[in-house]
């Protein structure tokens, strides 16, 4: 990963020097363990702050929305797929972008690691496939594959699908993962169980909207929950309104979500709202053989009519 950082800096400096871009969007080292901060660089000096490691789980496509500059952006597999979606949805132009592709072996799960060690996590370092954690209760090491974010563990598009330069050779894609085991479990529940499951899932929600705001798909000028004339959704902690927010937001992501995991990662109370978007992702795969953001050549299934669209649901 060290060479990823070096390579990103090297490419960024060249792009800025050659005036190919006005700014680079990447990450700088965070101030607490397992966190990096999305960051922009306009000068060679700024570029020296850029880093890349297993804590770059925020989706940088989110920082491209409606920008006017020429931008160099570091993009792992999911970021690149959301960049494709952004381009298709006219939130940024391909010509504005120089995509610095980052092959990715997954981001580590800060909550999982915090739960596996004694006391407070004080420092996390990594070498190759190993994650070393220093906590107030001692030291522990983990295989990186054991502590990946849930979405990364089942990711099948780790390499950027669109890029101008790559920081390294592509990494092997995972082929033996079952992406939807968890979704099937919920599908198999009876309605009461499923209702109880989602009731429980959202019980800690504080409506901070971190999930929505970390999501590159959620760029509406006014979100339906913020709409006031007329108001669509109540604003209190009423569980009905909380669920309405989560359910409707998920539907807005159907056929567009890349399961980048930024929503779950951003949530301050650790809600796995991906269980909604993953179901829709699975449906899009089953119904339309569609995976979001893989190509600039066709539009997402829910914003385009094809004569051979499945219509079994019409009875």
């Amino acid at each position: 990963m060290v060479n990823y950082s070096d390579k990103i800096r090297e490419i960024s400096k060249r792009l800025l020097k050659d005036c190919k871009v006005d700014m680079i969007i990447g990450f700088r080292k965070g101030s607490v363990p397992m966190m990096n901060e999305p960051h922009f660089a306009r000068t060679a000096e700024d570029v020296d702050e850029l880093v890349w490691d297993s804590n770059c789980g925020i989706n940088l496509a989110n920082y491209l929305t409606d920008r006017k500059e020429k931008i160099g952006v570091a993009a792992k597999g999911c970021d690149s797929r959301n960049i494709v979606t952004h381009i298709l949805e006219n939130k940024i132009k391909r010509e504005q972008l120089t995509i610095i592709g980052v092959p990715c072996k997954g981001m580590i799960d800060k909550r999982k690691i915090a739960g596996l060690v004694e006391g407070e996590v004080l420092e996390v370092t990594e070498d190759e496939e190993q994650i070393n954690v220093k906590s107030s209760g001692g030291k522990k090491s983990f295989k990186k594959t054991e502590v990946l974010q849930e979405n990364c563990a089942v990711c099948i598009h780790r390499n950027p699908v669109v890029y101008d330069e790559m920081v390294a050779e592509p990494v092997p894609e995972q082929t033996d993962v079952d992406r939807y085991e968890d979704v099937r479990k919920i599908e198999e529940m009876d309605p009461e169980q499923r209702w109880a499951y989602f009731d429980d899932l959202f019980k800690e929600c504080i409506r901070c909207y971190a999930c929505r705001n970390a999501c590159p798909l959620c760029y509406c000028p006014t979100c339906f929950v913020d709409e006031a004339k007329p108001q669509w959704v109540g604003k209190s902690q009423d569980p009905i309104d909380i669920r309405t927010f989560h359910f409707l937001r998920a539907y807005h992501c159907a056929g567009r979500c890349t399961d980048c995991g930024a929503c779950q990662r951003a949530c301050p109370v650790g809600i796995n709202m991906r269980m909604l978007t993953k179901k829709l992702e699975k449906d899009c795969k089953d119904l339309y053989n569609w995976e979001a953001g893989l190509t600039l050549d066709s539009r997402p299934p829910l914003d385009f009519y094809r004569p051979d669209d499945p219509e079994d649901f019409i009875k």
Partner: protein
Amino acid sequence: MDSHRINQLTHQRINQSRRDTDMKIVAIDKKDWEKGLDRLREAYRLIGPVKEDRYHYFRELPQGQAPDFDFFNTRISAKEIVYPQSEDLFEYTLDETKEDYHLLKEVEKDYSPKAVLGIRPCDAKAVELVKLNFDTDDYKDPYWLRAWEATTFVGLACDSPCSTCFCTTAGCGPYHEEGLDVLLADDGDRYVAKVLTEKGENFMKAAGWTEGAEAEARFESGKSAAEEKIVSTVSTEKLRSADTLALHGNEEMWEDISFSCINCGTCTFVCPTCWCFDIQDEVHGKQGRRMRNWDSCMFPIFTVHTTGHNPRGTKLQRVRQRFMHKLKYFVDKYDAGIMCVGCGRCVQQCPVNIDIRRVCDLMDRYGATDACAVEG
């Protein structure tokens, strides 16, 4: 409760807080802890930290449940105990056949005594800061004040602070007493309790914990040991003298700070000192209620005018507002330090790692250069 009564209560409370001359220390054998809690339940609703899935939260403690003191701090601050995220204020009917048609009627709420056990000193001090907003000469917020008056704050000294705690440079500390009625410290097979107010005395009596102890040394040594464990700091000395407009106008600094912000409400909602709210009317059928909900200056809708114009339309403006309020406007207006107690929740929970410690230092440093420029 009229405002005069609230005023009286407030003054009474301040006087109580100052009764430190006859302050007592009481020992509580841990074997008597649960029995004491049961006795307390006869007079108080008890609230304390409870672990749910991953994190600790303040929850009401039903019979048989003791607070879980094996925690760093709760995920959400204790402000919700007196200031819930959603609170009904009034109810009304739109049914014209009803006599009380269109009349706002106050919603009955339970203001019976409650006691929060295990509130950290940072959160207790934060309640005092929030009070500056809800209890002013001109305005007394009856809902906040009644809830506050009904609450006894029983703190738990912080012997194992987190790496993100910076209370000692934020006008607070792991054994800070401001805002507390009782301060507990863990002392092996017992707790020692410093009784700080009359409310605290009544609480201890209700629990049957009255055995005096010579434990001043435990508090003194515990305090210095805990303070030494605070490794994180902020600089605030120059904030007061910094030129407000120059600080506000430092676009380059604010762009650097705000770039990563996604404008979620995490920092403001988990913050023990953020006090902003929004009033909402909700009608179901013919039945309506007026409530207030926490609001966040990070949300674009926070400042949207009815014309549609938004004076704080960009995220740079919103992020700047949050930090300027906490670290400059508040400092200037109240002369009570910064509007932050150093609990570190926003540091830990910001999804994109915007760190108030860094921002505070940048602002303070800017204040310093600004002052030098004036002198030069």
